[in-house]
């Protein structure tokens, strides 16, 4: 069998989805990831497809353990996302979803940086349609902000690649030492896409404004491609450890007070990517394995959580914690699946987060980063608090909002059920996942100590929530938004422009009036002297000139004799 690049299957699938309707499109779309996975299973290792572009050869299909793992993961995520969105009759979303998943596959199988850049930009453009498809004014503006930031990341990546090509003559997609403008540009480009602190608001902005099904796709691909690229280019870069620890810590404070439950999930997504970034920064076998396996599990459990909130939004039209509550009565199955996702992200024993997150933490300790370990432990308690308890509690339990709706559509339930099953399978039997990891695995998650300490951490975190709730200390869900780093470009900058432009206009007016006034007075002065009575237009006799010539000649004679 000839081996096709995985992205091509998805792009062709998107084309077919564009021209088909009804059950035929449904069948086609479900077939795409299945056919892709079959193709993937038949791929040998190595650089399999190269295309010449000017004097560079582009490697479109590099297959190794790491790209294969992300390849399988993205096929799985695409299948779940497609299944979850089957009830839609929206060609935009179906086509954009397939193109987006295909672009993510293109990026992880890229053999050099130019191909990576091409798919990096395709990721940005195709995913923006999943936000635009909400078809509200808010979503449109959010999508534009999202697109601007994503394209900026792409431009920085390309600039960095070109600078490096000029300096070293190489476009290799491999380990890069962090010195020189080229390396830093690439580093920051990856940083924007993996939502580093202060560069993160595109994520909380767009993922909360996307369509109910769109955010399921969004949560799976963009940040994981960025983590993959970081693991390829900058493993063992110390700076990443501190960036990652900050990412794991700060979003949980925002998540606790955020009212929009999908934005809570977006903050928690940054927090989970923080663990992966720490793992990449540590760069040890255990750290990289932890980062990659946690990326795998995160795509599934975060996808599951976004699915459950998407189902709530789809059925009730509401997503704010302050407006929801008591939905377990109407949506018992969605509630159950959401709880499985919540247990997985919180890393309960037997659920998927348990077998991957701890690898990063143990690796941090082994490398002597005690404070980072403490920060990650804090973040682990925090993630249980906001994603594990807050999401299911305020959506499905808490006070009864009085909303009665239908259970989620069957295709949504199937997708959620499948994701939940994978969460439990990976958590209870991690060996399949471990066998796919890029580094040799020498890690045993189910030790008595690990199960006990993690249970203590989680039960006592739950106890803290209960105690705070019963004593009324817990902050209630309130309508409103919280300002974040995006304030600078959504408020400060527009305000500043609004203030500065009139000031410039005024100064400009004064200056123009001054210059014009000056010119006018010069013209008037000249006019005065050139008019009929002016000195320049006076007439005199020819004899006057002759006498002046005489005077000059006489003067010349005098000077000559002296």
């Amino acid at each position, binding site marked *: 069998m000839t081996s096709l690049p995985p992205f091509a299957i998805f792009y062709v699938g998107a084309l077919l989805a564009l021209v088909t309707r009804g059950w035929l499109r449904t069948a086609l779309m479900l077939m795409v990831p299945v056919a892709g996975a079959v193709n993937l299973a038949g791929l040998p290792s190595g650089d399999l497809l190269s295309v010449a572009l000017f004097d560079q050869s582009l490697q479109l299909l590099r297959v190794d353990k790491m790209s294969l793992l992300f390849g399988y993961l993205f096929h799985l995520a695409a299948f779940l996302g497609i299944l979850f969105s089957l009830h839609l009759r929206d060609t935009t979303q179906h086509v954009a979803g397939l193109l987006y998943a295909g672009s993510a596959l293109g990026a992880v199988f890229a053999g050099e940086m130019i191909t990576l850049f091409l798919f990096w930009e395709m990721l940005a453009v195709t995913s923006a349609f999943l936000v635009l498809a909400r078809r509200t004014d*808010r979503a449109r503006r959010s999508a534009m902000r999202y697109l601007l930031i994503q394209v900026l990341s792409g431009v920085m990546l390309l600039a960095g690649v070109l600078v490096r090509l000029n300096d070293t003559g190489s476009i290799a997609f491999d380990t890069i030492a962090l010195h020189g403008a080229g390396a830093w540009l690439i580093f920051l480009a990856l940083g924007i896409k993996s939502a580093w602190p202060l560069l993160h608001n595109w994520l909380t902005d767009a993922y909360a404004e996307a369509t109910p099904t769109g955010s399921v796709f969004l949560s799976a691909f963009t940040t994981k491609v960025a983590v993959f690229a970081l693991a390829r280019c900058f493993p063992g870069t110390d700076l990443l450890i501190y960036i990652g620890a900050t990412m794991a810590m700060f979003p*949980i*404070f*925002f998540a*606790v*007070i955020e009212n929009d439950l999908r934005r809570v999930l977006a903050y928690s997504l940054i927090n989970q990517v923080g663990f992966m970034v720490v793992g990449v920064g540590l760069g040890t076998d255990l750290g990289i394995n932890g980062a990659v396996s946690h990326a795998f599990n995160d795509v599934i459990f975060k996808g599951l959580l976004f699915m459950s909130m998407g189902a709530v939004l*789809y*059925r*009730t*039209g*509401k997503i704010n914690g302050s407006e929801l509550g008591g939905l*377990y*009565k109407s949506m018992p199955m969605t509630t159950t699946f959401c709880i499985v996702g919540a247990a997985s992200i919180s890393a309960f024993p037997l659920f998927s987060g348990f077998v991957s997150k701890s690898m990063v933490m*143990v690796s941090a*300790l*082994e490398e002597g980063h*005690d404070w980072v*370990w*403490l920060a990650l*432990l*804090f973040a682990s*308690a*925090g993630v249980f*608090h906001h994603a594990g308890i807050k999401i299911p509690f305020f959506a499905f339990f808490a006070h*009864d909002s*009085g*909303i*009665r*709706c*239908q259970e989620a559509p069957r295709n949504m339930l199937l997708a959620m059920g499948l994701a939940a099953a994978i969460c439990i399978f990976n958590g209870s039997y991690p060996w399949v996942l471990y066998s796919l990891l890029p580094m040799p695995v020498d890690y045993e998650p189910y030790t*008595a*100590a690990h199960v*006990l*300490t*993690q*249970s*203590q*951490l*989680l*039960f*006592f*975190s*739950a*106890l*803290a*929530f*209960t*105690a*705070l709730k019963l004593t009324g*200390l*817990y*902050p209630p869900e*309130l309508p*409103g*938004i*919280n*300002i*974040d780093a995006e304030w600078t470009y*959504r*408020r400060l900058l527009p305000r500043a422009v609004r203030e500065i432009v009139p000031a410039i206009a005024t100064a400009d007016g004064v200056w123009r009036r001054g210059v014009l006034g000056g010119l006018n007075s010069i013209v008037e002065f000249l006019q005065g002297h050139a008019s009929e009575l002016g000195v320049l237009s006076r007439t005199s006799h020819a004899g006057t000139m002759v006498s002046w010539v005489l005077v000059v000649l006489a003067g010349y004679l005098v000077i000559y004799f002296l």
Partner: protein
Amino acid sequence: MQETTPHPEDGKRHVFDNPRNVRLVIYALGIACVVTFVLDFVIHRHVDHPWEALFGFHAIYGFCACVVLVLVAKELRKVLMRGEDYYDD
């Protein structure tokens, strides 16, 4: 969007409408806490870090972390919170 008719009385009594069941959940959590805490006596834990050797370290750290998290976040709200249409005007 489907039917979202708010009707508090749908005639059915659900599991957590009964305060006894809510109390049961809280008791179960309390028991789980006590059991895992006591197990610290019984199970000889492998320790990666000296702080972990402290008795009940993860339990205490988890509890304190969450309390600190919530109380700090509550204070942050005073600084950060704005109206829902803050960016729209």
